[in-house]
């Protein structure tokens, strides 16, 4: 926790400092929007492995981290990239082959788990999933949980409503808080001290930031504090929650960043084809991640023509008429 300081650093320095083998990591964004992709690629380049990963509905970021072998355990509600991969391909292969351990929750449960961490309570209650296998089947066994102090002893618990008939909810599912080592978000604007402004839907990014020991924010633009303070109703995360601010234009690419650029259908379609074949996926990793020095080098490889094609229309915030086949 640092207050009032200039926290702007390079992406490689931020990842080196806060992301480590075996760390508990959560990444923001949803399916194909505002995934912190530049950071994901940097984690892959730094070959950080054995990550315990948390997300609610994350597609591209989760799939690339898994595909590159960075992840050993995953707690998630949904691994999909919309129409481009309704089930993420490398995720699917990894779960089917037993290469990663997975714990399934619902989207709201994951949101509540981040929120519980943000609120500083050990659990939050919900009525979701009563009667389902989300309650019955535990991806992480009781024994695995008992042996790992960084995991709650229970996936979740059912409890009778202690207030009797109050609220007309006889039973509650209690889901345990997530308190992860580091959360990485990609946002539209931040100042050097770490105050964050997201535009459009915020998903669960705010809760994810506030439940983590450390927060890396990558952003499209670094603006002055005065720019943010002129409209403080539109800012969401205070600077004292943030440890590192990284200026990375197109930092969510190939996923979208509302009002800046759209997702790149060409990249995502090519990714899907590559992901379906292990050999081709190795080549993809080499060519698009390991062999490029940083995110700018990836963007150079993609080229301005493609980046221009996904540029957001100022009226709507996305690329009107983009060829999305």
């Amino acid at each position, binding site marked *: 926790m640092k207050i009032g300081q200039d926290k702007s650093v390079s992406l490689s320095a931020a990842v080196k400092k806060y992301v480590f083998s075996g760390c508990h990591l959560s990444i923001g964004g949803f399916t194909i*929007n505002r995934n912190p992709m530049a950071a994901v690629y940097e984690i892959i380049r730094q070959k950080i492995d054995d990550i315990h990963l948390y997300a609610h509905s994350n597609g591209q970021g989760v799939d690339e981290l898994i595909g590159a072998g960075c992840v050993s355990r995953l707690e998630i*509600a949904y691994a*999909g990239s919309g129409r*481009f*991969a*309704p089930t*993420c391909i490398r995720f699917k292969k990894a779960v089917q082959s037993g290469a990663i351990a997975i714990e399934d929750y619902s*989207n709201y*449960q994951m949101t509540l788990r981040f929120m519980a961490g943000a609120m500083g309570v050990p659990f939050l209650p919900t009525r979701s999933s009563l009667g389902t296998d989300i309650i019955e089947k535990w991806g992480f066994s009781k024994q695995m949980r008992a042996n790992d102090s960084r995991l709650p002893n229970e996936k979740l618990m059912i409890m009778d409503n202690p207030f009797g008939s109050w609220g007309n909810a006889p039973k509650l599912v209690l889901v345990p808080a997530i308190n992860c080592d580091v959360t990485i978000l990609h946002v539209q604007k931040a100042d050097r001290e770490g105050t964050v402004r997201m535009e459009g839907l915020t998903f669960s990014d705010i809760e994810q930031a506030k439940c983590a020991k450390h927060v890396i924010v990558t952003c499209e633009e670094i603006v002055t504090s005065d720019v943010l303070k002129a409209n403080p109703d539109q800012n969401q995360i205070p600077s004292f929650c943030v440890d590192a601010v990284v200026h990375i234009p197109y930092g969510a690419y190939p996923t979208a960043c509302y009002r800046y650029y759209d997702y790149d259908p060409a990249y995502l379609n090519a990714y899907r084809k590559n992901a379906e074949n292990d050999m081709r996926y190795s080549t993809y990793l080499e060519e698009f991640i390991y062999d490029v020095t940083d995110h700018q080098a990836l963007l150079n490889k993609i080229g301005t023509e493609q980046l221009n094609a996904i540029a957001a229309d100022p009226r709507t*915030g996305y690329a009107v008429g983009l060829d999305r086949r």
Partner: protein
Amino acid sequence: MHDKRDQVTGNRGQEETLPPVTCNLSPHYTLKELMTIVAAREIKDGDIVFCGTGISMLAAMAAKNINAPNSVIFFETGAIDSLLEEVPLAVADSRVMYWTSVNGNLADAFATMQNRISGPHVVGIMGAAQIDKFGNLNSTVVGDYFRPRVRFSGSGGACDVASFVGRTITFMQHEKRKFVPKLDYITSPGWLDGPDARRKAGLPDGGPESVITNMATMGFDSITREMYLSGYFPGFTPQQIQDNMGFEIDTSRAVEVAPPTEFELKILREKCDPHRLILG
């Protein structure tokens, strides 16, 4: 519950295609148009419609323009009443964020469905890889959970929606391997194992109302909570429909589904999807 089209069509990552079924389809409308309109008819004026992308979103738009002008569409990502000038390819697509009434977040969206006042007014439109006779849904695995033959995306918001809201409508591809006697994994609660099961489990009132496939519509008996055939599409027979399911259902109450009216088709085609981005 996002884009579940892979699970509906088995055609992952492609535009939806018409199902591979032969029938005497009227030349005047497509099966997908009929499915959309049949779903739209189930949406009531004043409903809050939870939907994913694709056909469920189109059904919600059709209802709003035809029979339920005072309904509101919302997405689990927190977008309410989006102006969908282009088809979103995921519920987090920036296209759902444009010209909404409120851009919120996941916590807001699910609280709206769990809320005692608003939840019962929500109708959820779902999809899944498997469904059983009580309308329970599987969108997690085929095969054993710990060694799955096929791993799917997982619940997303589907389990939450199915747990919380007043009514759900499920789109399914009409295939034997999808209508199964026993789910490999219960992702989203339907009527669980019968009449009083939701209450016993502690779930709110509400549950599956109907299933819409590329052949038929199914309801759930108000006493037994078992699936029955409520309607068959023009060109299909109840027997054909039963033959493509993995469990027996009561077909005695089935009537032929009314084809789209000229007005319904006109609105769907001209106002909801003029570029046939979803209708194909």
